């Protein structure tokens, strides 16, 4: 196939070029970033509060002004003009540059926080010290690298959220959804934990950082011994928070997912999803839609889930085993309980939903079930200090390193401009895996295909951040019910023919849909469907 020689001019041309407003916005935003960078290189700013305010306002202002330049003079509608011409959104030079910069930032953040000015003994320096004034206002404590990260993260969701709303202002679903992620990030992930930290100045409280909307197993540190110690030593409030954490995954999550699909979490509440949907939106078209990628996705994400379950079981049983007489729940009862619970779940799926699952999903489920039971069996049969074959704390460290830091941070967010904005959610998030299994098997959510109106153009598949080949269903007139769908609604938004609609409806006929309606007479359709 011959390809067209594109103009190599660097000055740009519509739709690639930046207009005057966008150029100014870029300078403003870069100025704000430059202050942070200078601070990171230990330039000591005299009035930290002022310079921090200037920096953060410049960054937010730059992003919002950029959005104004991009969308304010356009009529409402889908305007993905030049997405595949622009360097940053088509894995060009700027895309790689952004990817490398983000990845570098995450490596420093997770593994070399001292470069940001974190000092084991003594006051902060560098960029972290720049954030001290804000941190003291909120929690009363000096900043940490996580406070810096949390602040920037919230600003990103807030400012890029405004950009997203501007871009999709004709679409009320997108507007409301984005306001929801902006709210949950600002209130639940950022402000409430800081205020909780303020409570800790009292003797009665010893609360760990706890983002209440972050549900286990995404929040894998909830059952760490320090976290459990903290919660259990913080009176009724701590106990309620722990109970809420347990109820989140076992009661609240299943109910909401049954009613609305996993989107209630992944694209309305979750912080990872929030960043992906706002700052990550320009990269959604970069996700891999191939059948191969789908296979890899299913193996990897469910493996992470198994890892998370094994690790957490090990942690909790160690915790309970330390002082056998401290808790009403003993380690043995806990382990038997886990085994019984998992057995019931798998037996239930096997019995009721076997037909709905693909062959390999069945193999996978059965295989993992056997592994978990076997591991628990090994432990239960032996009386050594070790949990399973590893020490629980070692397992936890490896999980934190591989999944928590490298997968969700360095790869998941750092590689936005290379692999798309949902790499972590699609391949790595154990919470998404649980919600996905439920969405696939037991939920009212589906994306309805509108009869025979699909023209196979491919906009839906291209702009699906989860790499679902939406078109392959739409052109057959089938509903889309995929474990990975986060319900962002963009497939429906970009469809030029009004073919897709996110809906909650009865379970009956949800997957097969009604009789495939492609516009032919009924006899033919009966014959086509027979095969």
């Amino acid at each position: 196939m011959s390809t067209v020689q594109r103009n190599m001019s660097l000055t740009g041309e519509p739709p690639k070029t930046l207009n005057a407003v966008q150029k100014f916005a870029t300078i403003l935003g870069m100025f704000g970033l430059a202050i942070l960078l200078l601070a990171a290189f230990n330039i000591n700013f005299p009035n930290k509060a002022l310079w921090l305010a200037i920096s953060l306002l410049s960054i937010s202002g730059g992003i919002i002004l950029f959005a104004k330049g991009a969308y304010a003079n356009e009529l409402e509608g889908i305007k993905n003009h030049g997405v595949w011409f622009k360097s940053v959104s088509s894995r060009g030079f700027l895309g790689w540059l952004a990817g490398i910069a983000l990845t570098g930032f995450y490596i420093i953040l997770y593994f070399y926080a001292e470069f940001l000015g974190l000092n084991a003994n003594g006051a902060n320096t560098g960029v972290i010290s720049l954030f001290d004034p804000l941190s003291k206002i909120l929690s009363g404590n000096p900043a940490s690298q996580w406070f810096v990260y949390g602040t920037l993260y919230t600003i990103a969701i807030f400012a890029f959220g405004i950009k997203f709303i501007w871009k999709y202002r004709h679409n009320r679903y997108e507007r409301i959804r984005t306001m929801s992620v902006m709210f949950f990030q600002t209130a639940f992930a950022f402000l409430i934990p800081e205020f909780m930290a303020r409570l800790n100045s009292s003797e009665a409280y010893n609360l760990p950082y706890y983002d209440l909307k972050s549900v286990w197993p995404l929040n894998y540190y909830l059952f760490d011994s320090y976290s459990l110690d903290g919660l259990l030593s913080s009176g009724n409030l701590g106990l309620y928070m722990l109970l809420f954490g347990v109820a989140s995954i076992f009661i609240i999550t299943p109910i909401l997912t049954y009613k609305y699909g996993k989107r209630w979490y992944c694209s309305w509440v979750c912080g990872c999803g929030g960043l992906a949907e706002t700052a990550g939106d320009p990269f959604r078209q970069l996700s891999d839609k191939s059948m191969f990628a789908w296979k890899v996705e299913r193996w990897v994400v469910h493996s992470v889930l198994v890892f998370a379950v094994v690790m957490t079981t090990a942690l909790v049983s160690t915790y309970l085993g330390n002082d056998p007489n401290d808790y009403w729940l003993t380690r043995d009862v806990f382990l038997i309980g886990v085994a019984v619970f998992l057995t019931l779940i798998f037996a239930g799926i096997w019995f009721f939903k076997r037909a709905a699952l693909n062959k390999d999903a069945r193999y996978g489920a059965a295989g993992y079930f056997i592994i978990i039971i076997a591991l628990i069996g090994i432990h239960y049969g032996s009386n050594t200090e070790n949990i399973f074959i590893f020490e629980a704390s070692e397992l936890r460290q490896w999980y934190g390193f591989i999944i928590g830091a490298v997968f969700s941070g360095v790869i998941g967010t750092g590689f936005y401009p290379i692999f798309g904005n949902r790499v972590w959610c699609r391949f790595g998030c154990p919470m998404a895996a649980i919600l996905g299994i439920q969405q696939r098997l037991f939920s009212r959510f589906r994306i309805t295909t509108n009869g025979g109106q699909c023209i196979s153009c491919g906009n839906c598949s291209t702009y699906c951040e989860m790499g679902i080949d939406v078109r392959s269903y739409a052109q057959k007139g089938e509903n889309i019910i995929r474990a990975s769908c986060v319900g962002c609604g963009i497939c429906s938004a970009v469809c030029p023919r009004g073919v897709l609609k996110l809906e909650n409806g009865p379970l009956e006929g949800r997957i097969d849909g009604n009789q495939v309606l492609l516009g032919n007479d009924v006899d033919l359709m009966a014959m086509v469907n027979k095969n």
Partner: protein
Amino acid sequence: MEHIVIIGNGISGVTAARHIRKLSDKRITIISAETDHFFSRTALMYIYMGHMKYEHTKPYEDWFWEKNKIELKRAFVKQVMHAEKELILEDGGKLSYDKLILAIGSKSNKFGWPGQDLKGVQGLYSYQDLETLEQNAPNKKVCKRAVIVGGGLIGIELAEMLHTRGIPVTFLVREDSFWNVVLPNGESEMINRHIRNHHIDLRLGVNLKEILADEHGRARAVVIAETGEEIPCDIVGLTAGVSPNTDFLKDSGIELGRGIKVNRYLETNVPDVYAIGDCAEQHEAIGNRRPIEAVWYTGRMMGETLAQTICGNRMQYNPGHWFNSAKFFDIEYQTYGWVNSDERLPEYEEHFHWIHEDDTKCLTIATHKETGKFLGINTFGIRMRHEVFDAWLTEERSTDFVVQDLAMANFDPEFYKSFESQILEAYTNQTVKA
């Protein structure tokens, strides 16, 4: 093993191939001179606009064809020798078949305008047209103005495409309002305004007289017949419809009209030769449909039908209720059943028209004057459920019923404002007045 050869890898040919494969293990070969793989023709515009790359417009991954044992051949067929059941290819090669399916699509209409074959003058139908467009109009520096001749679906798409690259567009439309041979006036006029809101220089009721050349034989300007006005430009888009691409079949013995003549079984006059999609012309039109239907959906339906016939279950092409859709810049259009334009309005048909105050949403419902039966609906900026309208048309519902229950048919995304009560109120008031 019987060898089925399909000329053309568009939606019609590929659908036929897929369904023949589902029903049989016959040998299948698809020949195309256009591209190696099937792509969505309707998505060509999005490649130029930068929404997608060519690879995104391919509905099946490249391994699909080998896995399903559908052979793909990149070649141009010069001649069909039906007596020998053989195809002569442009490179001199030959290919024999047992059954031949012609799914050869269309080409852009040219009505004998002086200068219509100059460089810089082009239609927009094929992948090659897109490549030519990329050369003729890569950006607003090379292409300072574009003129588009012909106000149909391809014309407005081309206007939108050029507009995204900042190229000023003059849009010449023969009719006195955009596409009003198909759309009722209220809708057509709303689209006129929408086109102009995008800063397209829309000229209504004008015809092209000629295209002028520069010293290099490139188009440099067009002349308008009515006024003699000369409009300088660097590209002329000819989008005055398409017609079947049958030139190479002229002396083949296969009966041609405007297209390839077929019966209801999609069979041509020559045994074992069939025609489907844009290029097929029914001897007699089916219902209100035209004898040639150059529409994505009908191409697909013909492919499905013919696959049954080829696999031993001889079947008539029997399309269900008419439906179609399009998008005019930012405004989506859907239609179910028949709504005729004002200029083609049959005696028995009357219209209810509603337009939203923001001027981007409207609908028209056609009713049988005597019986009150619902005949069809056009909607703009409001998505409707195909399934519901298909059922209502089959059940022969009244327009009163349809307007009352319109909410059932709404397919807009969740949380969208709905206008059913406004529409019902307007409908009721109108009925009272009449």
